[in-house]
């Protein structure tokens, strides 16, 4: 039987695909692919939206697909959608901390089967950088990064990770988490 969360990700990915938006799942839903398996309360997704018009169209289409948006605009780096049927929340990140929407970031996304759908998930290196670059970074974010180091080990692209960490100003923090 599909869980509420499984249904949520399926409906969201279906909406993003219909609207042909470039996106990647970040946060707790991305973690089981390359880190620890832990519970989460919401779904975080980064969506590449280039202007207010596209953003408002997305919000309108989300409304038609069963989501309700907290009033927001393209100027906000993050907006919240509630799924009416389940009350679950989706955080839509237009400008995720520490991540730039460039070709490399998009190319490195990984297509992963999450429940009943194939969805794009942020690369493990960008996942680690965005976790550490959050201004409200907490204990769980650091633990998530550490679990990716432990699970992937030598499979991590060190050069890319260090380059992105340097750009986001989190190189020393990344080293401290890895050593800790």
């Amino acid at each position: 039987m599909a869980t509420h969360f499984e249904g949520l990700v399926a409906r969201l990915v279906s909406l993003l695909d219909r609207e042909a938006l470039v996106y990647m799942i970040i946060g707790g839903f991305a973690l089981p692919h390359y880190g620890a398996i832990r519970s989460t309360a919401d779904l975080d997704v980064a969506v590449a939206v280039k202007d207010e018009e596209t953003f408002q169209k997305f919000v309108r289409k989300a409304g038609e697909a069963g989501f309700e948006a907290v009033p927001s605009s393209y100027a906000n780096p993050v907006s919240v959608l509630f799924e009416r049927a389940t009350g679950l929340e989706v955080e839509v990140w237009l400008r995720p901390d520490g991540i730039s929407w460039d070709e490399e970031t998009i190319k490195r996304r990984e297509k992963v089967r999450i429940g009943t759908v194939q969805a794009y998930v942020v690369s493990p290196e960008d996942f680690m950088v965005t976790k550490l670059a959050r201004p409200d970074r907490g204990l769980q974010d650091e633990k998530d990064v550490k679990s990716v180091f432990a699970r992937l080990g030598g499979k991590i692209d060190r050069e890319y990770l260090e380059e992105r960490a340097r750009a986001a100003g989190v190189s020393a923090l990344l080293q401290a988490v890895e050593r800790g």
Partner: protein
Amino acid sequence: MISELENNIPLETRLLESTLAASLGTLELSRTLHIGPARTIALVRRLCDEGLVAVSHRRGPRAGRPSSEVTPTQLGLEYLRAYRSLESKRLRSRPADLRKAAADGEYARRLAERKAPVYELFFELSGYGNALRGSRR
């Protein structure tokens, strides 16, 4: 009840943070910071002398002493920015937290290597967590 996290933040910073959203009077600050009025007044005076906050007085419609309003100055805002920037450099986790996280990551790797359905486990765990949060509410 003051949280452990708040307890680790210097009182000066907490006062400045409190005045960011709205200018507050001494009594409101005393409640927000969980300290007595006398201590709040002394703190506000000191921060005022250091140029971090400004105190203005407003006379209300009723008789009595005018109420005071504490607001951060430009220097106070710069102090807060510098504090946040420094604070962001500090690790939140203890070595034991990171060791546990590494063990969880290694366990997930073993599960994946054995072709265990990691996303099914994740959905199950998140479902339990959500139900628990719902029952607490």
